[in-house]
């Protein structure tokens, strides 16, 4: 099909930009570990979440030098554990599931933003360099109390 010279240039520039974006995204995701959450496939029976380890005891566990595992339950309408505190510079691996409906797990001011689905376990990691009280909120509509669903994580 005949393309006008200017159209060839226009599409060429556009297509090259798209390829460049895809290359950058692909390299960072596939080789530098900056992937979207969900790489770890781990399913769980949603009806038995509160009896299945580690979700029977949601809590923070130290696993290394300034490295932690934070097991969370996202439920209608809150998060367990209700309070969490880590030192500045801590790398936290969040492990989250839901015993009921779909929820979100978003920490404004960070790139922590993942969906929590009944039947699956969500994994997302963040290093909290700056001290402060970080808000964790549910950004996926889950019912009448959705706008109250929150907790905080204190970074000292």
């Amino acid at each position, binding site marked *: 099909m005949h393309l006008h010279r200017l159209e060839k240039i226009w599409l060429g520039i556009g297509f090259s930009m798209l390829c460049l974006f895809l290359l950058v995204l692909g390299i960072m995701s596939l080789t530098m570990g900056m992937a979207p959450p969900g790489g770890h496939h781990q399913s769980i029976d*949603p009806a038995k979440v509160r009896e299945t380890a580690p979700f029977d005891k949601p809590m923070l566990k130290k696993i290394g030098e300034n490295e932690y595992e934070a097991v969370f339950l996202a439920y209608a309408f809150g998060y367990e554990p209700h309070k969490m505190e880590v030192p500045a510079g801590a790398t936290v691996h969040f492990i989250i599931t839901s015993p009921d409906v779909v929820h979100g797990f978003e920490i404004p001011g960070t790139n922590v933003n993942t969906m929590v689905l009944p039947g699956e376990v969500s994994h997302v990691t963040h290093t909290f360099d700056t001290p402060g009280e970080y*808000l964790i909120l549910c950004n996926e*509509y889950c019912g009448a109390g959705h706008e109250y669903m*929150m907790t905080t994580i204190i970074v000292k």
Partner: protein
Amino acid sequence: MKQERQSTITPQALQPFDRQDSGLVLAHILFAFTALLLGGVAGVLQGLVRGGMITLPASIGYYELLTAHGILMALIFTTFFIIGFLYSGVSKTLGGSLYPAARKLGWTGFVLMVSGTVLGVVMVLLKKATVLYTFYAPMKASPYFYIALALVVVGSWLSGYGIFYQYRRWKQTNQGKVSPLFGFMATVTMLLWQVATIGVAAEVLLQLIPWSFGWTETINVLLSRTLFWYFGHPLVYFWLLPAYICWYVIIPKIIGGKIFSDALARMSFILLMIFSIPVGFHHQLMEPGISEFWKYLQVVLTFMVVVPSLMTAFSLFATFEIFGKSKGATGLFGWVRKLPWKDVRFFAPFMGMLLFIPAGAGGIVNASHQMNAVVHNTLWVTGHFHLTVATSVALTFFGIVYWLIPVVTNRVLTPALNRLGIIQTVIWCVGMFFMSASMHTVGLLGSPRRTAYTTYGDHPDAVLWMPYHVVMAIGGTILFVGVVLMIVNIILLLRAPSGHTEYPIGEASDEAVPTPRYLERWGMWIGLTALLVIIAYAIPISDMIHSTPGSPGYVTW
């Protein structure tokens, strides 16, 4: 392009629009705008609540309003307008009137869709379906809500079959000829819709209805979401393609120019169909249970669907510049002054085109794989789709009304009505600027979408969002004024003076190359689409079916 079927002295363009087809078209348009008005009422209330300016009485819930707003605006207004518009162009260009079988299919589809809409809205108002327009499991609505959705979808299939039937009959009576551009594009649009809705139909008929009736105990949540978003992405192209039909086929006629390239216009539609479907994962980038590989593959396919939009942008500017030069414009931008800015039939769609630049750019950001984490489920996304569907598509549809209603009712657009149309367009753009710009900004700051008024216990991050929510409320109120004015304009159009209005169908430019026949090898294009869908979805879906356990239902509202 000559229409050989017409043997009378009057050229087809000057023949009045078929009287029987008028009824069908008008019914769709008026139902669509009724939905827009009701959806607009819900929308302005939501904005005022989130901006902290009003509290709702106990009998109305924020999330019921939000569910109604999403359904009425994004499913009902759009689908009804699109089908009405497509039927009008198909009637006009594929023979001058609808065959009885096509018209019957059109009406049957209409009745089913109206029944589904009414049933669905009633269920929402009765608080039995406060699940938003995405109705994510395992929130469990009344089975009658899901039945309502099925009625709307099945009705739309029948409407599509009417268009396919008309197209096939035209091809049979015009052997060896390339179909008129409008008819071709309408067929691609409904074909895209047919393939896309298979996903949501499977979700509703095979998962949600049996589960909500209690015939099955659990539902595979990840699978249901995947089937929904298999549908949910091409849904936005179902909205966009009719707007593109206006830009490609109608606008050249309105400005007095020619279609830049019939062949490339058709090619862009084929590419849009192929690449808009196997890409639903870019709405699920933040979900567990889908591997990084499949997410990235679908991101690559998503970026491919940008190409036909780039082609469209080029085509439009080429059309405008060539038109301008034909009127004596000189210099790089001289053609800008030659365009009919004071004609709402051009101005409204043009503002839609212009705002598609930030709208589309935002879309590329959303689809950018891991970068989606910055914007997922924040108000940025809401800002994005209020630019794409609620501005680019909506303003184009509004612009169409100013000639379509006169065409089908044998009336004329008056200068006064034209002026009101320009005013409505400007009001819309101003309101949308305030609302969408503040949504984009506050979304980047982390403010979540689909959330009622809250400051999260006066947390400093959330308190920082409030000024933006106030600007959103102001923008939303201005937009509501725009909705009301649009309804007023439609009422006035229905009472405009009688006269003949030509259906504005563009003609191809003389230098354009003949259209390659392979563009109408439907089997090949459908086959290619199916192949891409299988490549993008077969393995991840089979994984989900085998490894994700089912969940019981919950009524959390």
